[in-house]
């Protein structure tokens, strides 16, 4: 074929001897011009919108940029010096009160403890968030809550160690009994053991061991906690505590047993029906009435309990949605395989239901993290609670925008990262087939 062509080409001169080089696509169909034509100036209505919004954005940038960055003052002693140094924003308030905004009134020479806790927290979350890390790291994750408690509040090391011992004892008791008698009874027995340990062993033994070998950190009382430290303490505790509680509540709500179901529905609907702020009022004024006379534990712990309960009700509803979205066949398949309730739930139902509810779960986390700001209303000095006192000091009286901008930015970054991570996680777990 090619031979005949080349012979013919020599004689026929109007046939081109060589291929023309490839031309780039015309400017009107590719490149930035085409992109703009398609996305900004598709028709006259689009053009008008583009002009209006472009002008608005330009105006915002032109007016805001100098104030926010170029003329801003980052280091000054008070607001008067700030105003002398520059026309723009006075971020000096953030830099001069940075320690307070982050740590509250935590003793300055102990800042390394919250910082270390934060780093360890990242380490503890890492194996949960990335499944290609060694699984052994999960043991550290399990121990981390106690470690964090000890690092932040200080005190004797024997308390946390005894709690670990209690968990170990409970585990052994459960394992021994579960083969000897049956799961229900052994769970009950384990519960009794745990309660007995907390009531009779924990306190005296801690004191006894401390008397023998006083190993510990300088204690820091809760009232000294503040700033973003308290936001993270409440937020992370709520997140970590609400997930298991929420799963149990959701399973209880789907249960065949009317009594269990009623208790769970009542709890969930009650918590979801009232604003968090009223629950925080309960924590700050009412909770002591529900405890034996004479006991009182500090406000932050009470708030932690309330926030965790609050979040767990929302979590339960999200997970219930996931449970309801599973096809009935999955439940029946678990039964058909001869798995009992807990095996079926753990191996077949929950992995799928949790996967479906990831976006909702992360949304609840984000909501919880933002809701931690409400504790400022019951007098805890979280960033917002600390913002007003700073603004009313004589040095910084007159500051409006700078503190909310800084606090808002930190919250924005934290929440935005969480929501992006959930998207990434969703994509990673997506098996490609729906339902």
């Amino acid at each position, binding site marked *: 074929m090619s031979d005949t062509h080349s012979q013919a080409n020599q004689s026929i001169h109007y046939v081109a001897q060589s291929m023309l080089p490839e031309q780039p696509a015309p400017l009107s169909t590719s490149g930035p011009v085409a992109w703009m034509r398609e996305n900004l100036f598709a028709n006259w209505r689009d053009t008008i919108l583009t002009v209006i*919004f*472009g002008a608005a954005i330009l105006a915002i940038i032109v007016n805001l940029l100098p104030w926010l960055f170029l003329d801003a003052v980052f280091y000054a002693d008070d607001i008067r010096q700030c105003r002398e140094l520059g026309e723009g924003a006075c971020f000096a308030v953030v830099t001069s009160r940075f320690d307070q905004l982050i740590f509250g009134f935590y003793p300055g020479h102990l800042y390394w403890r919250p910082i270390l806790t934060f780093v360890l927290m990242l380490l503890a979350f890492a194996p949960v968030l990335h499944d290609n890390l060694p699984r052994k790291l999960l043991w550290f994750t399990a121990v981390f809550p106690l470690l964090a408690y000890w690092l932040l509040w200080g005190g004797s090391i024997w308390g946390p160690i005894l709690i670990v011992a209690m968990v170990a004892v409970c585990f052994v008791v459960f394992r021994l009994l579960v083969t000897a008698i049956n799961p229900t009874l052994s769970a009950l027995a384990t519960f009794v053991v745990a309660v007995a340990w907390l009531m009779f062993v924990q306190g005296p033994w801690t004191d006894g061991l401390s008397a023998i070998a006083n190993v510990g950190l300088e204690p820091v009382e809760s009232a000294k906690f503040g700033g973003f430290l308290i936001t993270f303490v409440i937020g992370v505790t709520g997140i970590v505590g609400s997930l298991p509680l929420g799963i149990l509540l959701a399973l209880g709500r789907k249960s065949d047993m009317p009594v269990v179901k009623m208790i769970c529905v009542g709890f969930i609907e009650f918590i979801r029906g009232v604003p968090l702020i009223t629950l925080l009022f309960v924590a700050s004024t009412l909770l002591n009435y*529900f405890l034996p006379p004479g006991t009182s534990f500090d406000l932050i712990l009470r708030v932690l309990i309330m926030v965790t309960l609050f979040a767990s009700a929302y979590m339960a509803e999200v997970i219930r949605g996931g449970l309801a979205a599973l096809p009935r066949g999955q439940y029946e398949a678990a039964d058909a395989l001869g798995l009992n309730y807990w095996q079926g739930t753990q191996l077949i139902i929950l992995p799928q239901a949790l996967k479906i509810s990831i976006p909702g779960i992360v949304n609840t986390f984000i909501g919880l993290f933002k809701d931690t700001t409400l504790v400022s209303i019951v007098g805890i000095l979280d960033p917002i609670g600390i913002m007003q006192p700073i603004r009313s000091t004589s040095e910084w009286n007159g500051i409006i925008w700078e503190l*909310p901008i800084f606090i808002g930015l930190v919250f924005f970054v934290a*929440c935005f990262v969480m929501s992006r991570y959930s998207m990434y996680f969703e994509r990673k777990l997506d098996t490609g087939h729906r339902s």
Partner: protein
Amino acid sequence: MTAATYSDGSEPFEFRMLFYDKRYRSITLQIITIVLFMLAVAWLVDNVVQNFRDLGKDFSFGFLFQPASYDINQTLIEYTSRSPHWKAAVVGILNTLLIAFLGCIAATIVGVLIGVARLSQNWLVSRFMTVYIEGFRNVPVLLWILLMSTIFATALPSPRQAPQLLGGALVPTNRGFYLPAFEWGAGSLPLVIIFLLSIVAIIVFRRWARTRQQETGEILPVFWISLALFFLPSLIAFFLLGRPIGLEFAELKGFNYQGGLYVRNSFMALWLALSLYTAAFIAENVRAGIQAISKGQTEASYSLGLPPSRTMNLVILPQALRIIIPPLISQYLNLTKNSSLAIAVGYMDITGTLGGITLNQTGREMECLLLVMGFYLIVSLLISGVMNVYNSAVALKER
């Protein structure tokens, strides 16, 4: 295990069957649960009784009928500091409902506009809306409320220097906003009746037009006729009756504005912050609802020959609304609950009156908080009841 034997229900009952036999196990578990639950409740109640006795307190709602002896700065009903506590609570409830109602309306309007704009073909517009949504959603609402209130209190001018926007209809000052108020003159009652009648007429007309279309296939310009019915009779009556309803503008007298409708900064800050914050969530719901309708629906509608406007009204919106409305209502619920943050800016809602000052004055934490929680619970249950009715009404009717 030993339990895995078949039974036909005839073998004698043994104690261990309570735990191993599926027929009895769930009852056993429930009885254990009830006993544990009751024990816990009894323990809590016993503690409360004990604590109350130690403090010499009693549990009664009698304090509700004693004089409140505090003032409330915004009241929708008549209230003085000599009014009883229950009246202060009612004032608070009305203030809560007011902010919730106005907030829901504003949040819906802004949210729908932004949600639709987010889907715009225009890159600039959709990006701008994304920034709005992400910005508002990821920052705590309490921060927005406090920021708005600070701005209004410090950045707005004093009444004497305040600009009169929209011909004096809106005067923002650092003491609050002044809006025109309605002046109800003689003959305004017939006008209101005519207006209500014209709305009834619109509903009747739309029904009639629909049955007529179903019978004859003829389509009337329903929208324009409804619009005319809405405005024309009322406008004609307005001028025939000699303009009975007027607008009273606020006027600067001395150091302050007098007359008109005075809206406090605390209300304005709370309302704006709640609306804009909730609008960001509603916008996402609207976008998700519209995107959930498959493109095939639009194409099918076009191939049936329906024009774009009818495609939107008859095909897309009815389906999208089914997806949008349930989360929308739960956003309303969130807004209502978030309105309890009023306490941070001094707007006197139910949390501020009954759960705030009354609680602190009388020292009856238990009773006050029970009432406040009861109120919010009732509102939540009502709203979710409405949602359930709606859901069952619009649920896909499958065979």
